[in-house]
C-alpha cells in the first residue's frame, strides 16, 4: 500500500485509456504522455496498460507501507527517497516505511510513477484511468489527496529489474521538443490560405488554461473564409455543423485549443488540424508559457511516426528484458 501525504496539484491514476466508448461521449482518458507511462511500466516488469500515477507540475509525497519496485519517468521532479535523490528512467527498490517525495517539474510537465504490479484500482468501462470531469475511474474518480491509500497489484519479476536504466537515447529532452506534427483537417477549408500558413508557422504559447481536456494556445488571430453559415452551424465563423472531435484535434474558437486525453468528444467548432498521436505526449510535456510550433505532415507520415514510436518502445522493452 502507498499512503499519499501530499497529492500535488493534479495527480491522477492513468493507464492506456478507456477505448471504445467515444460514440457515447466518453473520452479515452489515459496517460497524457503514453511513451513515458509505458517505459515506466516496462522498467518495473509491468505491461504497458498497468495503471501508473500521473503527476502534473508538482509531484506527490508518499510513504510506502510495503516493499516495492518503482520507476519514475517523464518530467523531472527531482524525486527523493528518504531525502536522497534517486535517478529517473530507472527501476528502484523501496522498502516499507520509505518516503518518496517529488518536487515541482523543472523540465517537462508530467511525471509517471510506476510500481511493479501496477496501481490496483477497479476498472470502469475497461480502464483504471481517472476521468475527473464526471468522477469515474482511478482512485474515487478524482485527483489524489493527502490521506489516500493506493493498493499495489501482484508483481511477477520487478525484483529482477532493480537498477535497470533505459539508455540515454530513449530518454526525451522535453525542453527541446517544441515542434509537434499535425495533419490539417477535418475542416481546415474554413481557414483562409494565409491563416493556414499562420497556423503552421506562428509561435504558439501554452496558456495557463491547458489541462488534460485541452491545451489552449495563444498567438496570432486566425482568419476564416467568409461564407453564409449553413443551417445548424451557428453564426460565429469558427462554427460548423456539429462533428466528432478527434483526440489531438485543433479547434479554433478564436485561438487554437488542442484536445487531449479527456477531450470533449464533439461539438460545433471547426477542427482545422490534428496533432499526430506520436507527438501528443510531447505536447503534454510542454509547460504553461512554453512555445509550440506546428509542422504539417500527411497521414502517411503520421502513421510512419506512430510505427516508429511503437518500434522505439519495443526496443526499450527488449533492452530491459535483456538487462541493460
Amino acid at each position, binding site marked *: 500500500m502507498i499512503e499519499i501525504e501530499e497529492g500535488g*496539484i*493534479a495527480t491522477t491514476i492513468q493507464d492506456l485509456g478507456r477505448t471504445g466508448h467515444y460514440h457515447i461521449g466518453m473520452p479515452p482518458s489515459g496517460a497524457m504522455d503514453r511513451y513515458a507511462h509505458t517505459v515506466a511500466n516496462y522498467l518495473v516488469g509491468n505491461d504497458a496498460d498497468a495503471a501508473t500515477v500521473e503527476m*502534473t*507540475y*508538482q509531484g506527490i509525497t508518499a510513504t510506502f507501507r510495503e516493499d516495492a519496485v518503482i520507476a519514475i519517468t517523464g518530467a523531472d521532479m527531482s524525486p527523493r527517497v528518504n531525502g536522497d535523490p534517486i535517478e529517473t528512467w530507472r527501476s528502484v527498490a523501496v522498502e516499507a516505511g520509505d518516503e518518496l517525495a517529488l518536487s*515541482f*517539474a*523543472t523540465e517537462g510537465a508530467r511525471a509517471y510513477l510506476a510500481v511493479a504490479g501496477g496501481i490496483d484500482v477497479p476498472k470502469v468501462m475497461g480502464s483504471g484511468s481517472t476521468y475527473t470531469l464526471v468522477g469515474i475511474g482511478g482512485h474515487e474518480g478524482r485527483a489524489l489527496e493527502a490521506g489516500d491509500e493506493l493498493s499495489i497489484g501482484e508483481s511477477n519479476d520487478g525484483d529482477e529489474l532493480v537498477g535497470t536504466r533505459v539508455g540515454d537515447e530513449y530518454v526525451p529532452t522535453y525542453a527541446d521538443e517544441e515542434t509537434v506534427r499535425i495533419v490539417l483537417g477535418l475542416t481546415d477549408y474554413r481557414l483562409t490560405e494565409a491563416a493556414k500558413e499562420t497556423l503552421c508557422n506562428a509561435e504558439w504559447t501554452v496558456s*495557463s*488554461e*491547458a*489541462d488534460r481536456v485541452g491545451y489552449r494556445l495563444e498567438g496570432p488571430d486566425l482568419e476564416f473564409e467568409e461564407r453564409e453559415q449553413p443551417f445548424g452551424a451557428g453564426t460565429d465563423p469558427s462554427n460548423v455543423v456539429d462533428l466528432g472531435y478527434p483526440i489531438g484535434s485543433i479547434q479554433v474558437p478564436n485561438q487554437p485549443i488542442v484536445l487531449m486525453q479527456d477531450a470533449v468528444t464533439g461539438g460545433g467548432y471547426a477542427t482545422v488540424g490534428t496533432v499526430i498521436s506520436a507527438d501528443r505526449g510531447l505536447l503534454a510535456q510542454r*509547460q*504553461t*508559457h512554453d512555445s509550440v510550433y506546428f509542422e504539417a505532415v500527411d497521414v502517411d507520415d503520421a502513421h510512419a511516426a506512430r510505427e516508429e514510436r511503437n518500434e522505439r518502445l519495443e526496443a526499450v522493452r527488449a533492452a530491459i528484458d535483456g538487462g541493460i
Partner: protein
Amino acid sequence: MSDKTTITSPMPGVFYRRPDPDDPPFVEPGDEVEEGETVGLVEVMKNFHDIEADSSGTVGEFLVEDEAEIEADQPLVEVE
C-alpha cells in the same frame, strides 16, 4: 535580527494578489502574516492554487506584479 524568506511558486501560471478582481489584495507589504496564511494565488490548468506563507512574519516586497505570468520556482514575495 530578522530572517528573510522568499516564497517561490511551485508551478508555472498566472499570479494573482487578490481573491477576486474586485477584492482587495490578500496582503500588503508591511502586513503581519501567520504561517500558512494565503498571500496570493497561482492559476494553472483552470485551477487556482493558494500560495501560503511558509513562516510567520512581516510581508516584504512583492517580486512580481499582480496578474504576471510566472514560472515554477520563481520568487514571488519576501517575508521577514
